[in-house]
């Protein structure tokens, strides 16, 4: 029965935040539409919008889904339902990650399809797109973990600032790598060991951060 309550809590979160998800998808779709225009400025603007839509969604979801539930005193309502604190934390982690992953995957897949479909953009861009998008996934996981563990606005905002200010540096370090720059212009995707290691690291960080958040929550004794 409690498993179904956890499912209901996840569905509840999806219903509460579907507008956010749709807005992000809309923003991402506009970015992809701009990328279809064969000119330099729309291409640059489209790229920026594409990543901004992922970053904004990744920064906004943990706050609106986790922090605001406590801030707006909805938590007392949820606490009265037949769930334990760990079941509640599980529902929050699953719903927050799910709500980010769904549009993230859709936009990334659409981005890959766009590169494959356009002859004037080398397919060598695909690994870089995955790495850069992966950074937004890592950033989102760090912010979500901070929100789940702290249940407070301060640490979550700190994690958001930290992640958002790191993207630029991370992207710069990836793109300035000579091997990456060379492979970008390749007519086929080049999966160099550097790229694969980077992607593997991103996935490992995602797994460790989310696992740590779950572990810390499972040790928490009190709901409030």
């Amino acid at each position, binding site marked *: 029965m409690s498993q179904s309550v956890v499912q209901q809590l996840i569905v509840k979160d999806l219903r509460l935040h579907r507008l956010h998800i749709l807005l992000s998808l809309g923003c991402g779709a506009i970015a992809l539409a701009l990328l279809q225009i064969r000119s330099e400025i729309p291409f640059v603007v489209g790229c920026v919008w594409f990543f901004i839509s992922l970053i904004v969604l990744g920064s906004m979801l943990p706050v609106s889904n986790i922090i605001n539930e406590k801030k707006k005193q909805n938590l007392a309502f949820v606490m009265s339902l037949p769930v*334990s*604190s760990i079941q509640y934390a599980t529902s929050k982690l699953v719903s927050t990650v799910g709500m980010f992953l769904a549009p993230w995957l859709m936009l990334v897949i659409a981005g890959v399809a766009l590169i494959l479909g356009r002859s004037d953009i080398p397919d060598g861009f695909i690994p870089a797109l995955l790495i850069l998008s992966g950074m937004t996934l890592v950033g989102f996981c760090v912010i979500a973990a901070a929100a789940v563990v702290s249940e407070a606005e301060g640490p979550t905002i700190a994690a958001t600032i930290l992640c958002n200010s790191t993207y630029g540096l991370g992207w710069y370090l990836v793109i300035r790598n000579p091997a990456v720059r060379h492979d970008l212009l390749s007519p086929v995707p080049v999966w160099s060991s550097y790229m694969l290691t980077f992607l593997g690291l991103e996935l490992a960080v995602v797994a460790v951060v989310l696992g740590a958040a779950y572990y810390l929550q499972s040790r928490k*004794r009190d709901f409030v």
Partner: protein
Amino acid sequence: MSDLAIELHGVGKKYRYFTLDNIHLELAPGQIMGLIGPNGAGKSTTIRILLGLVHQDHGEVRVLGHRMPSEQVAAKWDIGFASDDMRLYEAMTLEWHMNFIRSMYPGWDPAYAQLLLKRFGLREEQKIKGLSHGQRVKATLLLVLARRPKLLVLDEPTTGLDPVARHEVLRELTDVMADEGRSILFSSHNTQDVEQISDQITFIDRGRIIDSMDKEAYLDRWRRLRLEVPLGVTLSALPGIIGIRQAGRLAVATANDFVPDLASAYVNAGARLQCIENMTLEEIFVANVEHSREEVEA
């Protein structure tokens, strides 16, 4: 296994600036207990512990036969909890909330929910952000009551309500008790509300339960004796008297275990009895808290 709805034995919880100390509380099925205490007395902490939301440092808690907090999930299927700091999702309608609760609770009673909508003057299509404070409290109670819980735990549910809304809420709670198997724990600092619906009263102050008994027993046992005292005579507190305030020739003795012999004893000591007054629950509460604090500080 005990049949009690609520059992707390030797329960304690220590925070940095507050300690809940050695709480004993029992509530039988079909009873309404009013938990009265000033702000910061420990009412909400006690309630959070008995709901399993906060772990007690020591002591045993059982609710509807379930050991808390380990069996909180099983217990909460039959507990309806509402508190003054509980808020529904503002962007959603009352109907959305009703559907949400109904999807979880097999015991949801749609006919009763409709009846409560009418009685409370609520419209299910209205968004929560458009409701007044009183309407929000009623909407929360509707969501709790229509589940038909065996135990209702209400933490300051009438705080901030106007007299009409308070009356409606209290009347509904009284109606709920028509089902004799249901129990209510009702915390408030408003003694009038508690007096209106409770069978039992428990006073809590500074993390300690200072008194707990039937409401009628309180009202029967507490009296105020107004006395005229000759100059130079000082009255002493007799057994059953918790305090005497004397100013010049007038004295007021407060009895927490009144028997007519007390009045005779003061008359024999030279005082003249002006009158014996019944005390309201609020007066009993204040006198009880003051007496308890004096004892602790002595």
